[in-house]
């Protein structure tokens, strides 16, 4: 059973067809890079997977469960980092993560310990009791990733997790994704920074105009199309599609 299994997924916003029969499979323990230009349908796909947006066609299953019909059960196993999100500025990461833990149904006695553990993993310990508004952008992003990880989900859906971060912050996030994968977690992350994908992913899928135009291992895709990097590959394939 695939961790994520999307078949013929479609989404029509008023005048815009955001997804046109998207098919995608992510196996357990993989880091999957979901790439494409702005407006390709990456965010819509991730939002459908966590039940924020309703599809107009097709189906999406996570760990064998339908994301719409069994949304609550699915979300117990999924952590989600949106592309843009507001954190409560006057709150501390510790209190905020506690709130997120309660909303995720974590047992009360375990939440504080889990917060410490997740903070250690993200190198956030020394900032746990500072106001979120006073944190750097990189540390705010870590708080965002921490809220996605707090309930110990098997699957992480990260929407543009490295956008806006400096090279050190980006590297930290990419390293974290790799280490999560080694622990058996499945990571699906969207990005339009293809060098991040090359560094991190077991598999890559390129989405363009709402459908997947290319999928495979980064190295084999490059050799198959005779390109030196994924940027060149993307331009070649996307240009051909257009």
């Amino acid at each position, binding site marked *: 059973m695939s961790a994520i299994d999307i078949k013929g997924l479609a989404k029509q*916003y008023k005048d815009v067809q955001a997804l046109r029969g998207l098919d995608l499979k992510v196996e357990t323990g993989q880091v999957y890079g979901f790439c494409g230009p702005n407006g390709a349908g990456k965010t819509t796909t991730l*939002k459908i997977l*966590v*039940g*924020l*947006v*309703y599809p107009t066609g097709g189906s999406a299953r996570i760990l064998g469960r339908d994301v719409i019909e069994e*949304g*609550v*059960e699915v*979300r*117990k196993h*999924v*952590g*989600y980092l*949106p*592309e*843009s*999100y*507001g*954190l409560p500025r006057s709150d501390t990461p510790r209190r905020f993560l506690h*709130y*997120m833990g*309660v*909303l*995720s*149904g*974590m*047992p*009360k006695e*375990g939440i504080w310990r889990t917060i410490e553990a997740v903070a250690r993993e993200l190198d956030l310990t020394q900032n746990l009791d500072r106001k979120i508004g006073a944190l750097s952008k990189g540390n705010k992003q870590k708080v*965002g990733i921490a*809220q*996605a990880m707090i*309930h*110990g989900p098997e699957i992480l859906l990260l929407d543009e997790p490295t956008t806006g971060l400096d090279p050190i912050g980006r590297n930290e996030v990419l390293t974290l994704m790799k280490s999560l994968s080694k622990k058996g977690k499945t990571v699906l992350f969207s990005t339009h920074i293809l060098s991040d994908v090359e560094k991190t992913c077991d598999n890559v899928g390129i989405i363009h105009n709402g459908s997947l135009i290319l999928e495979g291992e980064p190295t084999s895709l490059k050799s198959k199309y005779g390109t030196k990097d994924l940027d060149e590959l993307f331009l070649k394939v996307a240009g051909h599609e257009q």
Partner: protein
Amino acid sequence: MSNEIRMRDLVWQSTIRLLFSFRGLLALLFSIFMLVMVAYIYDKLPPAFFELITIFTSDPSLQFQWLFFDNFMSKLITLFVAPMLIFDAISGDRASERFGIMLARPITRTQYLLMKLFSASLVFGIVFLPIVALGYPVFMSIVHTLTLEGYFGTAVLVYLLAFFTMSVGILVSTLTKKAVVSFIAMFGVMAVFMMPNATKYTSDALNSLSMATPHYYATYFSSHAFDAATFAVYAVVVVLFSIPFIVATIWRFGKEDL
């Protein structure tokens, strides 16, 4: 990990966060302000003011309730305090792009809405209770004919009126992401609901119209002697007024792409 979400935990967490927020602080300040004001006003009011109230009722205990609950508290609560606690419950999360974090948790949208509604109601209860409880001995010393059940019965109905206001508020809050728009819209809607009741003594038509608003039932004992059976029925009636707004909110928000 159990991952079993209990509504009680959600509401409690949300209540604590609201209580210690800026809006919670404002509500607490309201509570203190009301206590001070009420004690001051009742001590200083000229007898002529009470005589004026006899236009509406000759019973001194009802005179008190008319002034305190109907003329004072219910208007402040429905126009300002309850809206203040709920107006950006949803629009605030929408504007600050917090849906992606909140609703990606293993909770249903209905649970999320009810969490917001009940936590705002609880915070209101926390700030309202001291006014009612501490106010009683003060008013008892001024109006000796005041009855315990009449006083607290009316207080419960005013609390339910605040719940109704919040039910309207949560619906309004789902319609916009601008908090100011939400607050003004709530003020307008509540003013429309309140108007027939506030002017019901001026004509029979307005009196009939006021019966279509929860304010009529919530403040009924301000001008009528208390009786338990009527109280129970009217409490249910005020809650029933809230139900369509809650259902409409759940229906509308439940099918929305966020």
